[in-house]
Every structure is written in C-alpha cells, then in structure tokens.
C-alpha cells in the first residue's frame, strides 16, 4: 500500500454469471462519474460499494474504515456503511406515501420535516403514493429520502435515465446545485457524457468489467488512453500513423504504427481565404446545460458562443481564444 490515504481505496476481483469484474480505484472527495457501455458492470460496482453484492476477492476502505477484506473475512453489512443510493427507477416503497417514504429512517434530529419536504418541492405531495407521481417527482422523493438518512457517500445510478429529455435538463441542473450544496462525496453512474461533464469533477470509464481510465473530466474527455475509451467517448477519427504531424502521409511501409485520435469537436471547418478570424478573451463561461455558453470580449465587442461541453473543457475565464466564422455566415441586416 502507498503511504497516501485516499477517501476510497478499492481493489476487487469478482465473478458474476460467468463474467469477470476487476476494479482498482482510488478516489478523493468530490463528485465522481462512472461511465461505460451497457453491461460493462457499472451498477455491479455500485452494489459492491453499497454492500448488497459481496465480491469474491477484494478490499474496500472508505475514509479509513474497512468495508471489505476477503482475506480477513471482513464484510461490513450495507446498513453499517452509511451509503445512500438513488436507484435507476428510484425503488420507492409502493405501499408508503411520499411522507413515509422520505422519512422512512428517523433522520437528523435537528431538521424540520416540513422544511425538508419544501426543500424538495414535495410539501403538496406528502400524502400521494408513488404510483401517482411523475418521473421528476419520484426522483425528488428518492433524493429527499436518501439524503434524509445523512449518508457519508451518495450513489446515483443513472439518475436521469427514466426521464424525458426536457425534464432531464431541468432536473440535472437541480441535482447539480444539490450535490454541490450538500457536499457529500458522490458517485454517479451514467452513460450520458454531457451529464458527467456537467456534474462531475472526476470520471472513471469502465469497459467489459475493467477500469479503462480514471482522471479529471477534462483529462478523460480530451485524452482517452486507448481506442476502446476513445470509441466509447464517441471519437470516430482514429487513425494509424508514424507521427501526429504526418498522420495522413503514409509514404512507404512502417513496421510499428501508432494510433491517433482526433475529437470531432476539435475540428472546425472554414475556407481560409473567406473566413474572418476573431481573437478575444473569455469573460464568462457557463457549463450548466448541454452546451457551454461563452461570452468573449473581442476588441471591446461582446461575442456570445455556444460550444459543446467537450470542446470547452480546456477553456477557462481569461483565456485568449480564436474563433473562425465564414464570410457567408455573417448576415447583413436591413436597416429599420
């Protein structure tokens, strides 16, 4: 073991339905995303952290507390780990109304129950049963119930998967505010990269039961370590070449070619001879929605730009950046 203590230190080998899962992960406090294709083993990992799936071999330490050690036969039961989990379909208790679902556990003694329901906009639904709730309401109940139990680690399993696109956008921003407000270490499983980019500080990519890459969102989204991760991150421009600067100039035969990838977000189209190049400083940057909203100052002119979250990950306020716009995209307006 290294001398440094991590918030979460996990090393697991597990067999499930004939498939092998190998995870090795060290995480610090913050919001951490787990992404990967369907069936990669993301939810299995959450269940091992929750304590409802016992891995064959492994060790999990959270905040200096030993949760699992197969060598010394330690397996801390789920009830004693303090892990709160919001399930994909929320898993509300169908026979209990909203009030009884949220306050299933005694919760913090110093917190008022009415205020808690109001905080999650559930006061008017206290007597409703889960089967009568909309997707957004059910999600708020699940979050309110989980956070009422004051967990030390919060797990969100595809929290927006059951919602339609418009509702997903609104709720994602609410969850983002909440996760930063409560400041509990959080792990979010998702297959939506936009969700991860807007909610998480760090991210782990899982493919075929193995951890393919872990790092900051910026690092992983901009520098996938291998072709599997790049392809999962929807990078399609993957080429073999001798060196980056001579990518398409394969004159002659090479024994050992490297693979190169270019994100389609990093490529821009313009005809050089007919393009206007603007240079400006980033005054503000809002990553809240599917697109990043940038406000630039170009020689005293304000320029509003919508860029993909991936394209804007390396950019921060104060950076000097270039913009290309084709002459034909500059529309002349009639005077009023």
């Amino acid at each position: 073991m290294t001398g440094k203590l991590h918030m979460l230190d996990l090393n697991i080998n597990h067999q499930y339905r004939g498939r092998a899962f190998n995870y090795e992960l060290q995480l610090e406090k913050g919001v951490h995303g787990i992404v990967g294709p369907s069936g990669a083993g993301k939810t299995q990992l959450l269940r091992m952290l929750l304590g409802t799936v016992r891995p064959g071999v492994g060790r999990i330490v959270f905040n200096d507390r030993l949760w699992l050690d197969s060598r010394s036969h330690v397996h801390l039961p789920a009830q004693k780990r303090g892990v709160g989990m919001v399930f994909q379909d929320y898993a509300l208790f169908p026979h209990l109304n909203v009030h009884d679902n949220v306050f299933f556990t005694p919760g913090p003694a110093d917190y008022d129950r009415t205020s808690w329901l109001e905080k999650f906009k559930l006061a008017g639904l206290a007597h409703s049963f889960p089967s009568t709730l909309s997707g957004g309401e059910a999600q708020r109940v699940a979050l309110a119930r989980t956070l009422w139990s004051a967990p030390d680690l919060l797990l969100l399993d595809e929290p927006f998967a059951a919602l339609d696109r418009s509702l997903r956008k609104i709720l994602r921003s609410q969850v983002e505010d909440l996760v930063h407000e409560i400041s509990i270490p959080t792990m979010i499983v998702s297959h939506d990269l936009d969700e991860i980019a807007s909610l998480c500080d760090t991210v782990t990519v899982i493919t075929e039961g193995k951890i393919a890459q872990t790092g900051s969102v910026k690092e992983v989204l901009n520098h996938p370590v291998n072709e599997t991760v790049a392809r999962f991150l929807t990078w399609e421009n993957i080429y073999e070449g001798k060196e980056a600067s001579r990518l398409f100039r394969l004159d002659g035969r090479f024994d050992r070619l490297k693979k190169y990838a270019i994100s389609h977000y990093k490529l821009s189209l313009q005809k050089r001879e007919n393009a206007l190049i603007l240079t400006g400083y980033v005054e503000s940057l809002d990553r809240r929605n599917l697109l990043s909203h940038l406000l630039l100052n170009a020689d005293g002119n304000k320029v509003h730009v919508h860029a993909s979250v991936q394209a804007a990950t390396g950019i921060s306020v104060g950076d000097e950046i270039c913009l290309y716009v084709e002459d034909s995209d500059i529309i002349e307006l009639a005077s009023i």
Partner: protein
Amino acid sequence: MFEPVLLSLQLATSATIILLIVSIPLAWWLANGSSIFRSVVWATTALPLVLPPTVLGFYLLLAFSPASGLGKLIVDWFGVQLAFSFAGLLIASVIYSLPFVVQPLQIGFERLDGRTIEAALSLRANWWVIITRVIFPQLKGAFLVAFTLGFAHTLGEFGVVLMIGGNIPGETQVISIAIYESVEMLDYAKAHLYSVGLLVFSFIVLFLTYARNSFSLKRKGE
C-alpha cells in the same frame, strides 16, 4: 349439532397455520431459487389442483395405515395412528391445500421489488424493519389470499376427509361429512342448515378478502 362446525373450524385453523409456516420458505424458494429441482417441486406441490381428492386420499390412507412402513413407524415413535384420526386428517388437509397457499405467496414473492429491500438497506434499516415495513406490507395481499384460500379450501374439502377420516363424530366428522350423512338419512333440514352456513361463511370471507385488496390498490392509485 355444533360439533361438526367446531371440528371444521379447528381443522381449518390448525391446517392454515401449518400451511403458512411450511409455505413461506417453500414459496420463497420457488420464486427465487435457481435449483434444477424447482420444476419438480413446483409440479409436486401443484398436484392436488388436478388430482381427484380420492386419489390423494387413497394413497395417504395406504401410507397412514399401521400396516404400511410409514404408518407403523409413526405408531412406534409417536404412539399416534394417523388413519381415521384428527391428526391424519390434519396432515392430509395440509397436503391437499398446499397449492392454494403456496401459489399466491409465490406470485407475491416474484412481484416483490428486490430493489426496495436494497433501498431500505441503504437507509440503514435493520432486518426486522425491512421484514415488517418493506417486505410484509408489499406481500399483505398475497398473504391474505393465501390465508383465505387455505382456510376456505380446508373447510370445504370432502373427498380426502372421507378417505382418511371416515365419519367419526367428534373426531373426524367435519361439516362436509355431516352434510353428506344428513342427506343420506333424508334429514334435509339439517343438511340445509350446514350447507347455507358454509355457503354464507365462504362468500363473506372471499368477498371481504377481494374487497380489501381492491380497496388497497385503489388507495395507492394503481
């Protein structure tokens, strides 16, 4: 006059209690188990649904007879003769009513959302709380149907009772046998009294059970 009624109630109550004790683990295993023997056990449990009661009663009578190995063993060990006794009637009733209790419970266990148990575990609930506040309330309807069907079916059984118990007043003469005997003796007034009583009682029990389940679903907006 009331002896067959009391005996029937005693038999139905005892059989239902034993049925619930036996059926809960059996139904759980049938709903969640992955053993290759599951289909064999399921088919065996369901046999009384399709077999004529007399077939079951005939083989149980042979098995319970002191002349058979099993019957002799029970007499030697426990000093109880099962054929033509209340104890034999009780065991036969449990076997005969088994599918009526196991199947509603099995359906209940299959429909139980396992993630609600995981959610309760993540909310730091102990197993007593999980059983009483998460699992049992979701299975309440299944338990009520299982209890009602087990009780009502035992109360109304005739073929097996006749084969195993015969017609011994105070020992094995339950209502259904008393009705049969009254009709044979042309005492229609007595037969009517028992029959109408059994009919009304069975209807009320079934009505209350289904009305309760339908009210419960309506309340939850399902």
